[in-house]
Each structure stands twice: as structure tokens, then as C-alpha cells.
């Protein structure tokens, strides 16, 4: 099967690899770059477990072709850590607010939360619900996840 070179920037590093043209971005990130935080939950863009940031916007990587990643900036959970392995504020908030149970939806949720936080805007709780609505979770009832994102947003805005 046809292979194509994909050159992109992943978590701040310029990388390139040949991929099977049929590969999804999830396949490339997991198999070629061992970025296993990107999870497969449904592979049809319903559950959000595979969510990554592409040029700052959240996408379901399972329905994004790997070859489209050429020239793009991609961020996954692994890229959020500080130079010495420090947790970012949103990761720490997920820990502190008990927003993690089985953890399978967690990476996707955190990446969408990063996009929300980086807008620098203040959202109401209901607006946050909508911005996070592309993720399914069966463990948490969404409650503590919403709390973690809301608290981090407020902290960044100095309104904690």
C-alpha cells in the first residue's frame, strides 16, 4: 500500500515519518511515535478519547487522516509536562479534584481543556459543559472534570 512522508511538529519537536496513506492520525501517533496517551474508544469520532490539538484546535484524531498532519503542529498529553516532568496546572487540577477514575477518557479531556484555557476567556459553567461535550465518560458523571477545568480557568484569570 502507498506510503507517504508526513512532516509535522509534535509536542514542540519537528519530526517526520513515512505512513501508510490509510493510517488515521491516531494510528500514526500511537504506532509511529508511541504517544500512547491518545486512546481508541470508538474510532468514529463519538467518544473523544483520541482528541489531540492540531494548530491549537481540538480534533478527534481517529477520523483525521495521518497524511493531513503534514505541516501541522500537533499536541498530545505527553507534551504538557514541564522540562523536568512538572505537571501543568490542568493536569494537577485533574489530580486534585479527583477528576480521574479509570483514566481512559482523561487524556482527551485534558487536551480539549487546554484549548479552552488558552483562549484566555472566562466561561460560565454551562458554557464549559458545551465546550467539553465532545467527550464521553462513564466513570465520573463529568462532575469533577468540570470542576477541574473551571477551577483552572479561574486560577489563570486570577479569579480563584
Amino acid at each position, binding site marked *: 500500500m502507498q506510503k507517504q512522508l508526513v512532516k509535522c511538529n509534535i509536542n514542540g519537536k519537528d519530526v517526520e515519518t513515512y505512513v501508510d496513506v490509510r493510517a488515521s492520525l491516531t494510528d500514526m501517533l500511537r504506532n509511529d511515535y508511541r504517544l500512547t496517551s491518545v*486512546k481508541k474508544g470508538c474510532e468514529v469520532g463519538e467518544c473523544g478519547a483520541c482528541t489531540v490539538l492540531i494548530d491549537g484546535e481540538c480534533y478527534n484524531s481517529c477520523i483525521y487522516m495521518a497524511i493531513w498532519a503534514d505541516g501541522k503542529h500537533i499536541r498530545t498529553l505527553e507534551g504538557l509536562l514541564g522540562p523536568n516532568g512538572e505537571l501543568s496546572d490542568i493536569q494537577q487540577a485533574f489530580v486534585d479534584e479527583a477528576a480521574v477514575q479509570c*483514566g481512559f477518557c482523561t487524556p482527551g479531556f485534558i487536551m480539549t481543556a487546554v484549548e479552552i484555557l488558552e483562549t484566555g476567556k472566562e466561561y460560565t459553567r454551562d458554557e464549559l459543559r458545551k465546550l467539553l461535550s465532545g467527550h464521553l465518560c462513564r466513570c465520573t458523571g463529568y462532575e469533577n472534570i468540570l470542576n477541574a477545568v473551571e477551577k483552572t480557568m479561574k486560577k489563570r484569570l486570577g479569579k480563584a
Partner: protein
Amino acid sequence: MVVGKSVKRVDAVDKVTGRARYTDDLADKSALIVKICHSTIAHGMVTKVDTSAAEAIPGVVKVVTCFDVPDIPFPTAGHPWSVDPHHQDVADRLLLNRHVRYYGDEVAVVIAEDEVAATQGVRALNVEYDEYPFVLDPQEAMQDGAPQLHEEFPNNILAHTGYEEGDFAKAITEPGLVKIEGWYNTPTVQHCHIENHICFAEQQNGKIVVVTSTQIPHIVRRIVAQALGIPWGQIRLIKPYIGGGFGNKQDALYEPLCAYCCQQVGGRLVKLDVSREETFVSNRVRHAIRYHITTYARKDGRFVARQMEAFSNQGAYASHGHGVVAKGAGAFKQIYVDAAATKCDAYSIYTNMPAAGAMRAYGIPQVSFAIESNVEDAARVLGIDSVALRRMNMMPVGYRDAFSHNVNYFDTLNQCINKGMAYVDYEKKRAEYAHQTGPVRRGVGMAIFWYNTAVWPIALEASSCRIVMNQDGSVQFSIGETEIGQGADTAFAQMVADTVGLPFEKVHVVSTQDTDLTPFGTGAYASRQTYVAGFAIHNIGTKLKNKVLAYAEYLTGKPADTLDLVDGIIIEKSSGEHLMPIDELATTALYSTEQAEHLTAEGTTQIKSNAYSFGCAFAEVEVDIPLCKVKLLKMINVHDCGTLINPQLAEAQVHGGMSMAIGYGLSEQLLFDPKTGRPLNNNLLDYKISTMMDHCDLRAEFVENAEPTSPFGTKALGEPPTCPGAPAIRNAILNATGVAVDQTPITPHVLFVKFKEAGLL
């Protein structure tokens, strides 16, 4: 002391950094991929499988069909094995089936070099069937002449049990009794854990090693060996982090088939990756149970006699079988205690539907919906306040169940109800909402529930664990009880820390179970982990501490019973004097040229007790009658799960169960085409689990009555949160609109029909 504190999850950092590895993350890229060819009819016999086109596809390595597999029926249920054949689960599964019994049954597998080749291979298989008539409804399946699924079970009745306490026929002759009768229907729903079931297998070192997303590693190991007909020690089963289970993974799902495929390709690494669509139908579902409840009450509200018939849709194979509806039958006579008599008949019936297995709270969400709907209706018929009617009849303090020996030590139900009422301002709202007339109306409703802990005396309760001390005084803790997302590892670490006398940070829970290394435990189900592990930890943790103190005696000359290990320091009890830190003792002990000892402790702890775990839910809803929509405004669960080991994690557990109950009450249902038995909505778009926009804020509160049978005062929490939410919502809708809905999910389609009947539309 760290038990009782909301310490952070021991696995949280690994999970928020992506370092936590789940099954697919551990599978090597070189794995061959197994894809399953599922039956496309609901009932029939495979007459032929033409594999030639599939085998010709580049990348296809091997095709195995139902004609190739050994004829060794095996059970799949996640129950401890019984050496008494009469107590063993029904062994009605083969690895692949010629007699297919539901749409989605397994007929053949294609093993290929990549997933596309495997999928193309499955599509290229030509399967011929002799089609039989099929039946999807349990009561139809019980009738004479219905299609038969299993020869050994005439009329498709897997089991029928019942009881009669008191003299029912006599009891209902009491003059002046009011009769409240209804039929209540609960749906087929699925667990929808975000990580689909997945496993891989490879021959290593004389064993078949299976890595799998399961709740029950030791049990699945046994079942894989049984299915393959090989000694149990030849299977090594490993369970890493899993992405939820909720009971679906409390069964042997595809591990036996995966291990068999590994054998079929000479021991090579094979991976069996199940899609979401397959998970919905070809794993397990919740038993859909239809109830017929009749309550006979005095005019003052006292229940004199109640009767229940329950028809449980078992689906095509036995899995957890009759235990589910039977648990509900037991709940029926305990949650409310009748003055004179209680009668029950429960049937589990095979149908050509996906196999029903364990799902969070095991029959109690179903029966709670039925019972609490009936009681709410009774309140209206009798003209008595809903809460007052419950208080009058629910299990009293001091009640003792003859079978389980559970005792209701505390006034839990009243305490829980009081908290729930306060949160939703129940009495004020009932009054305020009593006379609404507009198109949008609000209502409050509630429900109580019964639950218990672990499975004694029905089945074995025993747990083994091992604690191993390092030179620096830290320990590894290994147990067969599993972290499935609920926070078990953290609770274990807290209990170990307090029992042994170490700081929390010095306790490392080995999260992965490996049957080669991990002591025997049956795994996560029946809300047993914290309760059962608590006994094991108390036993073995104390053993380890005693070994440490005995060595301290050897080193210091002071008698061990005058010493203690507290927070990692050996102290003299009476004076509090610090004698030495644990790392000094552990290092000295390990390297002593006089008396060397590696400080470890392990053993089996058997548990012969059970514990009630009760609570309630209160919900406030807004019903938009013209649009047939229900909006949740407020919802609370109140639980008595004994002493909270970790309050923050306990709350989080409750939120998750509430979410499941909301879906159960309002939106979730697996639908099947009545003409073909084919599933219609087995995907995450058409099967409606709640999104973040479908919930209100979820509130969890607790009443902490320390459980006397438990060394840590704890009892069931994992499953109870799923029990009361759906009936609480149903009752809130009733109180808002006057319309009683006796089925779930209460979708807009259902409300449309009901509102028209009631003249509201």
C-alpha cells in the same frame, strides 16, 4: 492515620501524564490481528463456512471456523469456582459456534497481519446458515412451542426460584386492603466503558500469556484453561490498567478465543481488538427484567402483603445467569418488610438476544425501578405522603436476614432520606408544585434502595495478599483484587499504611495483576474490593507489623508487645520514645549476618460476613410537556457505605453511578429489529449515554455508620450509586405531571404517548 482522608489517587499522576499503560498500549506492533466473523442471523445452524476467498487475501495468515474448535463447553461467568458441580455456573459456551443463538454470535475468526486484511478477510467469508425461528421476548420464550435455545433447558427457562414468607393467600383476605398493581419494564442497556474489551496472547516459557482488559484476572485464567482443555497453571494472565468494566469485564469475554488463536498460529503474538459496535452486542448486556408487583396495603399505609413476579431476559447464553434476578428477589422482601406475607417468583429465560451478564448493581437498578414505582403509586392511591409511606414500611433497625445473617444495625434509611429531603427542599417543593397547569412543570421525586456487600454466603469470599518490604522501609502490596477505575489501589494503600504503620507514600500498590505473581483474589465485583481487601490487609498487614516488631525486639531487647510501628518509626508505646526508623530496621534485617530476614507477609483471609449498604436518591426535574423533554435540575444520592476510606474518591464513585442511573432512567436502550433480531443502535451515536450537557450538577452525601463486621468499618459503595436514580426521576416526573411511566428509559417518545393518553397533549 490516613484512612478517612481524601488523599490523592496513587495512579492519578500516571493517568494524567499518559504513562499509565492499558492493554493496547502494551501490545507489540508485530502482533497478528484477530477479527471475528459474527452471525448475521438471530438463530440457526451454520451449515458451511467457505474460507477460500478469505484465505486468498494478502496478509491473511489463518482462518479458523466453528467447525475447527474443540468441543469443550465452558462457563464464562466471573464467579469463584465451586468444587461442587451443583454450584458451578452453566457451561454453555464454545469458542466458536455452529449453533448460533443471537445476531452477533461468533462463527469464525480471521488472523491477519494487519487490521485491514483481517477485516477484509471477515467480509470475504461465505457463511451459510440453516435459519431457525427466533424469539426476543422472555415471556414469549417461555411458552410451549417457542424456539428452543438450549436442549438442557426446556421452555428456555434457565432457572425459576421463588419464595413465600407467611401465608400470602390468607394475608390478602384481611378486610379493607387496598390493592396497587403494576407491570414495570426495564431495558437492555450496556456498560459503555470507554476502553473496549481487548486482549493479546503469546506463547512464552511454556505458558500462554494473555494480557487483557478484565476485572477478574485469576478467574479468567481458570476459564481460558478450561476452554482450551489444558491444566490451569499453563495460562498466565496479566491485567494492566483498564478503562472501566462495570461488570462487562466480569466475564471471560474473548480471552479464551484469543489464547486459542495464539495456539492456532504456533504460539505467535495475536491481538483481539473488539470494536465499539461489537462491544455493544457481542460482549454482555444488562438483564432486561419485567416485573409484576402487587401490593396490598391497609388504608393507613401499612403493607400487609406484596407479591412480585420477575421475568429476566437472559439472552442467548448463561453468563451470570439467574443470580441477577434472584438478587432482586431477595431485595424485594428486605427493603420493605410486610406485616403478613411476601411472595415472589423469579424466572431467568433464554432468548435470542445478546447474553446478559453482570452490570453495575446486578439486578438492583431493575428491581428498584419496579419497587419504587409501585410504592410511589401506592402513596398516591392511598393518599399518603411518599416519604411517610416508605418510612412506615421500610426495613427497620435491627432487622436480620436469615439467609445472609446481615443485620440492619443503624437507622440508615431514615438518616439518608433526611439528608436527601433537605438538599432538594422536598416538602416545600412538593407543596409548591402541587397545582401546576402550564406547559412546563417541575417536580421532585425520590427512591430508596437495598444493597449488600460481596457474595458471602452465596459463594466463596476469600482474598490473599502479599506485602513485601524494601530496604528503605517502603513496601509493595500485591493482591488479586483489582483497580478498575474505582480507586481500589488508593484505598488499599491507605489501609495498608495504617495497618502496618507506615506513611502513605511508603506504600506502593502493584496495580497490575499477573497470575504468575499475584496472590489469589477473585477480582472486582459485588462492590467487594474495599470490604474484602480490608479483611485481608488487616490480617496480613498486622502479620507484617508483628514480624517487624519481633525483629525490633531482637535488635533492642524490648518485648515486641511494648513496641509499635507508627508512621514509619519504631516507638516504645508507653513513653512514645522513637527507637529507630523503619528503613534502618529493614536494611539491618535483610543484610544481617546473624539473623537475616527479608520482611514479607502473605496469606489467605476468608470472609464469612456480609453487610447491608443502603441509601436513596432525590431528583428535581423540569418537564417540557409539548416537547416531551425532561431536564434535570437537581439530583442527590445519599449513601451509607460505612466509614469512608477516602471521602473525595467515594464522592466521585457516586457521581459515576448517578450518571449511569440518569442514562438508565431517561435515554439508554439497546434496540433490536423485531423482524431479524439485528441490533439497531449498537454505536455511541445512536445509543444515548449522557454527555456533559445532559446532566445537572450531581451531589453526593454520606451517612457514615461504621460497619461492625469490617475492620475498617467499610461496606459496599461501587454499585449502590446506580440503584435509586432512575426511579427517583420517574417519581419526579409523576409528581410534576401526574403521569406515571412504568418503563425505562423515559424517553421523549414514551412521554409523547403517555402525555397524549393523559390529555396533556
